[in-house]
């Protein structure tokens, strides 16, 4: 088995990103439930924030590839 440590590192990075995206999505759902008329704005911002969180995970994945 090669690259096992890399795989563990990538898994850890995904845990972080998963918590982050989960929080973003959950809070956005709360916000939409409270103010359904602002759903459009909240949705765009939610996707934007999720993309930023994902960015951190992607950097970790690339570090995994090049290590």
């Amino acid at each position, binding site marked *: 088995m090669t690259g096992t440590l890399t795989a563990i590192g990538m898994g850890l990075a995904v845990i972080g990103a998963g918590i982050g995206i989960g929080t973003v999505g959950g809070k956005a759902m709360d916000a939409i439930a409270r103010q359904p008329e602002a759903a*459009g*704005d909240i949705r*765009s911002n939610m*996707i*934007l924030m999720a*993309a930023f969180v*994902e*960015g951190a995970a*992607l*950097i970790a*994945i*690339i570090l995994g*590839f*090049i290590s």
Partner: protein
Amino acid sequence: MISKYSRIFLLFLLFAAPIFVLAQDHGHDHDDHSDQDHSEHTQEAHGENHSHEGDHHAGCGCDHHAEEKEYNPTPDAFHHIADANAYHVVGDIYVPLPCMLYAPESGWTFMMSNKFDYGHNHGTGKKAINGYVLNHGEIMRVSDSSFPMNEEVEIDCITHGEGDSYVVNYKGTCYALDYKSTVDGGLFGGGITSFYDFSITKNVFTMLLAFLLVFLIFRAVAKGYKAREGNAPKGIQSLVEPIFLFIRDEVAIPFLGHKYERFLPFLMSIFFFILALNLVGQIPFFPGSANVTGALAVTGALAIITFILVNINGNGHYWQHIFWMPGVPVFVKPLLAFIEILSLFIKPLTLMLRLAANITAGHIVIFIFVALIFIFGNAGQSMVGTGIGTLLSVPLTLFMMTIELIVAFVQAFVFTILTASYIGAAIEEHHH
């Protein structure tokens, strides 16, 4: 009620049919193989499946392996997502593509890729032309000058050399092959090679197809607006207009404010181009199936265009916020400048990686779900296993392809919204 169930069953059969064809195909390969038929065909299959496990023979020869091992889908999945110089349709049927190759020593070489004679050989050519060989649909060049360079010769086989490299066996001698010339295939592999590949590859072909498709659709839509000015949209207009308005009202106007009209053509081009490529990539047979938006070279080019556009439109406040952040203590300013300059480059980098990683992941997951048939069926040897694998594989593949349809839209949208937010940050007026 009955008709509803029979329709679902027909749909199931429709998706199962190509998988059975593939299963037959694979079973056939491995039958050959267990019959100890030492054709090049079998050798190739072996070279591919086993050399990763490190049992490469020391001398140069075409490997012959007797024992059957478990089916390993990883190399096949990576060949599926990689770019290729011949378009695989099904079984041994390939669509040849034009090759335009340039090497500083031997000049230009123009030909169609079927000249390599890859017929029944998993896309590996039996011929070397001007030192070029076709290895699993990819053109590679012999880097050893003692190889007969300026003629057409029959080669014996192509096997794995040391590490990730390949060697070509010609008359009992091994000649090292260069890595492929593009950056995307080996995930940062590539590097400097002895030749340049300007061919119309599978990815380039699909991009041209997407250009044509988007152009034809938008020409029809534009004509529709001219013909029915002031009236309700009709036909394909009704499909494009809501998407167009969604991008304008949800992406362009909130992020760019009153200056949105200047950047709208760019945002629309990038959105519909990525969307068309994502959707064409979802078609599992000939004109589709290429992993274009999953190729780092393609998404990298798009990200570089965004990077240039953001920075040439950046105003004074934008640059001031990068180099000398106002409103913070002086000793923090150099630190923030360092972080801001880093983030200047990380932004397009993540833009590139996000799209490529998401689309590639989708392609690999669908491939692995189809490969469940071969994993359960022990590479076509066990009929019961193949049946169970098919029952598992078809719904999972169907499910994943539906998810990928959503991903195609979401990733095109995310790329566009992030581009818009970066441009918006660069052109924002100062108000403290």
